[in-house]
C-alpha cells in the first residue's frame, strides 16, 4: 500500500501545474467587491454556532458556542491563520467565541445550565452532575443577546463490543525518509433489526526527544508527547471511517485499514553542530475506538469532509455543512463507544 501513498503525493505534484495552467494560473486579477448592493445578495444574518458531542463514556459534557461571520458586514472575523517562518508554522487561534451565553441541557423534564470555562473557551458540566445515558433524548439550548439556537439528539442505546482487533508494524519509504509505523483494524458485529451508524477512530500517542543547546553547546533533549496523523484506507480525514449497516444489517463488520507513523521532525544547529529530534524509548500507545453514532453526528462529520474537498476545487458545486441546530449552525451529536488501548 505504501506505493499508493507515494503515487498520491506525486500525483498532487501534477495537479498543481494542471490547475495552474487550467485556470488559476491565468487569472488576471482578483477584485474585492464592495459595491454589490444588498438587494442582489441572498438574505444574510448572523447565527449562533453550537458544537457538542455527548457520550455516556465521557466524564463531562462540553459545548462550544461561537458566532458566524456574515459577508459584507462590520462583524470582524477572527479568522484563523498561520505564519511560516523557516520550518516553524505558528497557528493563530480561531475564535468568534461567545462567552456570555446561557447554555442549558435538558432531558426528561430535567435541565441544567452549563458553566463557562474561560481558559478553554467552552461551556461544560461534569457527568457527575448530569449523566448522559444511552437511548435518551437530550435538548441543548443556547441564548446570547438576541440570538437563540436549539438542537436535539438521541444517544444511541447500544455500546457495541469490539470483537477483535489486529495491529501490525509497517514502514513507509519515500524519497526523503523511511518511517516506522503501525497498521490496524477492528472487527465487530452489527445489531440485527436496528439501523446503526458507526465511526472508527484511533490515536497513536508517542514520545519524541526534542533537542536544544544548553550551556557549552551541550545538546539537551526534552521529552515531548506527540500524536500521529491517522489514515483510513490511506486517506486523512477519511469519509471511510464512517460506516452504515444499511443493506448489511446484522453482518460482521471490519473497519478500513488504519495506519499511523512515528516521526521525529525538527533539528537545531549552532556553529555547524546539528542536533536532530529523535524518538524516545517509551512505548507508543494506540487507542482504538468504535463509536455507535447518531445520524446527526454522522451527517455533520461527513459533510465537513465533503465541504473541504469541494472547497479545494473552486469549480465544484459547493457542499453545505450539515446542521441540526434550529435558528443556528453546527451540530449536537451523540455517540456510545467502546475503547481498546494497546501498548505497542
Amino acid at each position, binding site marked *: 500500500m505504501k*506505493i499508493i501513498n507515494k503515487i*498520491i503525493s*506525486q*500525483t*498532487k505534484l*501534477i*495537479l498543481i*501545474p*494542471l490547475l495552474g*495552467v*487550467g*485556470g*488559476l494560473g491565468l487569472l488576471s486579477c*482578483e477584485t*474585492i*467587491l464592495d459595491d454589490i448592493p444588498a438587494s*442582489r*445578495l*441572498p438574505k444574510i444574518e448572523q447565527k449562533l*454556532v453550537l*458544537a457538542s458531542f455527548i457520550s455516556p463514556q465521557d466524564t*463531562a459534557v*462540553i459545548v462550544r458556542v*461561537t458566532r*458566524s*461571520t*456574515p*459577508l*459584507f458586514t462590520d462583524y*470582524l*472575523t*477572527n479568522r*484563523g*491563520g*498561520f*505564519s*511560516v517562518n523557516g520550518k516553524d508554522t505558528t497557528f*493563530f487561534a480561531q*475564535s468568534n467565541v461567545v462567552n456570555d451565553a446561557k447554555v442549558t441541557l435538558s432531558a426528561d423534564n430535567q435541565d441544567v445550565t452549563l458553566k463557562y470555562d474561560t481558559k478553554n473557551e*467552552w461551556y461544560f458540566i461534569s457527568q457527575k452532575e448530569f449523566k448522559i445515558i444511552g437511548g435518551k433524548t437530550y435538548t441543548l439550548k443556547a441564548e446570547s443577546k438576541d440570538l437563540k439556537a436549539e438542537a436535539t439528539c438521541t444517544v444511541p442505546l447500544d455500546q457495541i463490543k469490539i470483537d477483535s482487533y489486529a495491529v501490525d508494524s509497517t514502514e513507509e519509504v519515500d*524519497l526523503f525518509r523511511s518511517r516506522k509505523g503501525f497498521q490496524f483494524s477492528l472487527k465487530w458485529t452489527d445489531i440485527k433489526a436496528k439501523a446503526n451508524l458507526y465511526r472508527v477512530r*484511533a490515536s497513536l*500517542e508517542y514520545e519524541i526527544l526534542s533537542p536544544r543547546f544548553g550551556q557549552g553547546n551541550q545538546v539537551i533533549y526534552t521529552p515531548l508527547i506527540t500524536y500521529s496523523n491517522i489514515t483510513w484506507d490511506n*486517506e486523512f480525514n477519511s469519509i471511510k471511517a464512517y460506516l452504515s449497516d444499511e443493506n448489511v444489517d446484522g453482518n460482521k463488520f471490519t473497519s478500513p485499514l488504519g495506519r499511523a507513523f512515528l516521526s521525529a521532525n525538527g533539528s537545531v544547529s549552532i556553529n555547524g553542530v546539528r542536533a536532530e529530534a529523535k524518538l524516545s524509548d517509551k512505548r507508543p*500507545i494506540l*487507542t482504538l475506538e468504535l463509536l455507535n453514532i447518531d445520524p446527526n453526528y454522522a451527517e455533520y462529520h461527513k459533510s*465537513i469532509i*465533503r465541504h473541504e*474537498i469541494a*472547497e479545494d*476545487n*473552486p*469549480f*465544484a*458545486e*459547493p*457542499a*453545505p455543512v450539515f446542521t441540526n441546530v434550529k435558528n443556528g*449552525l453546527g451540530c449536537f451529536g451523540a455517540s456510545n463507544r467502546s475503547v481498546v*488501548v494497546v501498548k505497542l
Partner: protein
Amino acid sequence: MSYLKDLNSQIQLIKFPHRGAGGFLMTRCKTLLFLFFTYFSLSAQNRYTISGFVREKGSQEQLIGVNIYVPNTSIGTTSNTYGFYSLTLPESKSLMLVFSYVGYQRVEKVIELNKNIELNIILEPTNELDEVVISAKKQDERVSESSQMSKIELPINQIKKIPTLLGEKDVLKVLQLMPGVQKGSEGQSGIYVRGGGPDQNLIILDDAIVYNANHLFGFFSTFNGDALKSVELTKGGFPARFGGRLSSVIELNMKDGNKEKLHGEGGIGLISSRLTLEGPIKKNKSSFLISARRTYIDVLSKPFIKAAQKRENPNVDATGGYYFYDLNAKLNYELGKKDKLYLSGYFGNDSFYADVADATTSYNNGINWGNNTATLRWNHLFNQKLFSNASLIYSRYRFGIFSKNARTDADTDITSVYQLNYDSGIRDYTFKYDFDYFPSPKHAVKFGLQSIFHRFTPSATVLKDDNINLFENKVDDIDVVESGLYAEDVWSPVDKLKLNVGVRLAHYKTNNTYFLRPEPRIALAYKLSNDLAWKASFAQMNQFVHLLSNTGLGLPTDLWVPTTDKLAPQNSKQFATGLAKDFDKQGFSVTLEGYYKQMNNIVNYKEGASFLVIDNPEAAEKVEWENNVTAGKGWSYGVEFLIQKKVGRFSGWIGYTWSKTQWQFPELNQGRVFFPKYDRRHDLSIVGIYELSKKITLSAVWVYGTGNALTIPLSEYTVYNDSSTPRNRFGDQTRLFWPSNRVNEYGERNSFRAEPYHRLDVAIQLHKKKKHHERTWEFGAYNLYNRKNPFFYVAGSSADTGGIFGGGNQVLAADNQLVLKRYSLFPIIPSFSYNFKF
C-alpha cells in the same frame, strides 16, 4: 392536387378483405409494406429523374446543402451530405433548373426532360466584393424555403474572419454566438443549447461521435477549421435521423481533399501552428487531405524550466510542460460512377508531463487525454432515386494518468520500479446504414439504422511494483448496445406546406437493462407569402449516456457513463414555433423562434460529491459513481431572434435570446426549484465582418450575457470535530474539539447572480496575393475594453492577499472583514498570426 387523388385511389385499392384472424397480422404487415412502396412510387405518366453530384470548381469538393429548384414553382430539393441530389419531374420540353449555394455563383440549366438524366454540376466560388450583383439575383439559401427550423449553418470562410482568443479559430466558439446557444464560463468552448448542458450535444465528425471536444480544459475546441467543409447545429425540430442526445446535434464534415491539384493552407499563431495539405492521388478519381495542429508552449518553456530547476538544485533535472495536437486525415476513392469510398480519421491528444530525475531516482508523471475517430464510408447509388451510405465507425475517448518511479539503490545498484496507470474512457464501434430516397419532388425520404457498441471504462488501474512484486490490473468495463431505426419524409402535400414527418425507434441494452422507445418527430413550414414562412416542430429525444462532469468546465476528468438499472435514461420533449423571412433585395434573413423544452431524468452530482480523480486515483477507482449522482427534471423556454447576412461585403449577424431554465431535483436544494448555473435571461451577440477592400478585412464581435446563477457563501463559521481521543478528557484539553476549519454557510442553491458578462473582440486581416501563394496577417484583440468579467467568486477576508492556494509565507491579519472577491480570467489579450494558402 392530382397527385393526392392518385394517392387516395391507391389507398382504396389496398383495402382488400382479410383472410381469417390468423393471417391478420401478416396481412397488416404486407398492407403496410405495399402502402409504403406504392405511396412513393406512384407512377404518374412520363416522369423522369434528373440526378447527380454538385461539386466545387477546382477542388471537386462535393457541396452539401445546395439548393436545386425549378424557378417560380415550389419544386426543389437540396444536395445531401455527399453532394448528391435527385429530382423526379414530369416530361418537359424546356425545363429550367437552378443550382444555388451561399458564396457560389448560381448556375441555371435549361434541359429537355424526356428521359432520365444524370447531371453533375460544378459551382464556382464568388468573390465577396462582387456581392452587390449576386444578392440581387436572390442567390441566398432562403430560410423561408426549408421545413427545417432551429438550425444554424456556419459558412467556414466566415468562421475564419471572426476575431478569437489568441487568434485560434474555433468553430464551437462561433456557434456560441448564435441565439439559443450559450457559452458556459469565460473562454470555454462548452455549448449550452436551449437550457441543456454540454453533455446533451451530439457532436459528430464524419459520422463519428466525438466525446470530448476540448483541448486545454475547454479553452480550445478539438476542431481545426482548415479541415472542415461544413458545420451545422440543430437545436430543435430534430429530424429522425439524429438521436441519442437531448439538446442539440452538431454535425461537422471534413473536406474530401482537392481532386485536381495540390493545395495547402496553414498558419503560425501565438499558441499553435497548423498545416493542411490536400490534393489528388489519382486526378479526379481519388484525393487526400491531411491537416495537423500543435501547440508549442512546452517547447518554448523547456529551457526556462530546466534553468530554474538548475538554479534551485543543480543535481536534479526537471522538465515539464503541456501540449496538444490534432490531426485530421481523409482519403477518398471513386470506385465507379455509382460507388465511392471515404476513409477519414481524427486523432487528438492533450498531454501534461513532469519528469524529475537525480542520480539515483527518476519520476515520470503525466496526464493524457484525447479522442480518436475513424470512419469508413461507402456511398452507393442503387439508381437515380435511391442513394445509400454505409459507415463503419470507430470512436474512442481516453483519459489517463501515469506515474512511474525508478530508484537505484546506491549500495546494491539494483533498480526498482513502480508504476501506476489509471485509465477511464469510452470506446465505440458503430455500424450505420442510411438511405436517401427521392421518389418525387414532393417527397424526400431518409431511412436507416445505426447500432453503436459502446464499451465504457469508468476506471481501469494497472499497478506494478518490483519491490513487493505487486501487480494489479483492475478493469471495470461495461458493454452496451445502443441502436436507432428511423424513417423520415420531407413531404409537401400542398404547394405552401412542407412537412418533415419521422419516427425513430431508440433501443438500448446492457446486461441488466433494456429500453425500446419510439421518438416521434414532426416539423412543418407553411408559406405565408413568397418570402415568409411559419414553422413549428415537435421532437422527443432520449439520451442513454451521461456525462459526469465535476466542474462544468471541459476538464478531461469528465466521465461518460451508461444508463444502468440505477440510472434511468434522460429524455426530453421540445416544442418550437417561429417565423422565417427572407429579405431578398437586401440579402439578409430574419428568424424568430420560441421554444418550450421539458427534460426528465437529467443527471447532476449530489451535493459535495466529487469525482476529481486527479487528487487520488486509488480512491476514485473505488467510487461508486451511481451513488454519487442524482436525477431530476428541468424545463426551459425562450424566444430567439436572429438577423443574418451570410454573404456580401458586409456580413454577420445579430442574435438575441431571452430564456429561462429551471431545475428541480428531490435531493438538491431540499427539493425546491432552482436555476441551474447557466440559466441566462438575456444573451446578445453582434458579429460584423466588413471587406474594406480586396486586401483588408475588418471584423468585430460584441457579446452580452446575464451573469451565471451561483451559490455563494453568505457567512463563515468555525466547525469543530469530535476528532481526538484523549485518554483523559481533561488531561489533554487542547486536542479536544480541535477546530476543524472555517467553513461557509450557503444560501439557497444558485441564488446569487454573477455580474453580467460582456466583451468586445476585434480583428483586422491583411491579405496579399503573392506569386505562388496568398498570405494573411491577422492582428486582433480579445476583450478590447478590458472588462473584468467574473470567472468565479470566493468569500475571503479583506486583508487576505495572495493566491487562492493560501499557504506560503502569508500572514493573515487577525481582524478583518469577510468580503466577496471576484476573480476574472482574461484581460485584454492582443494576438497576431500569419496564415498562408497556396
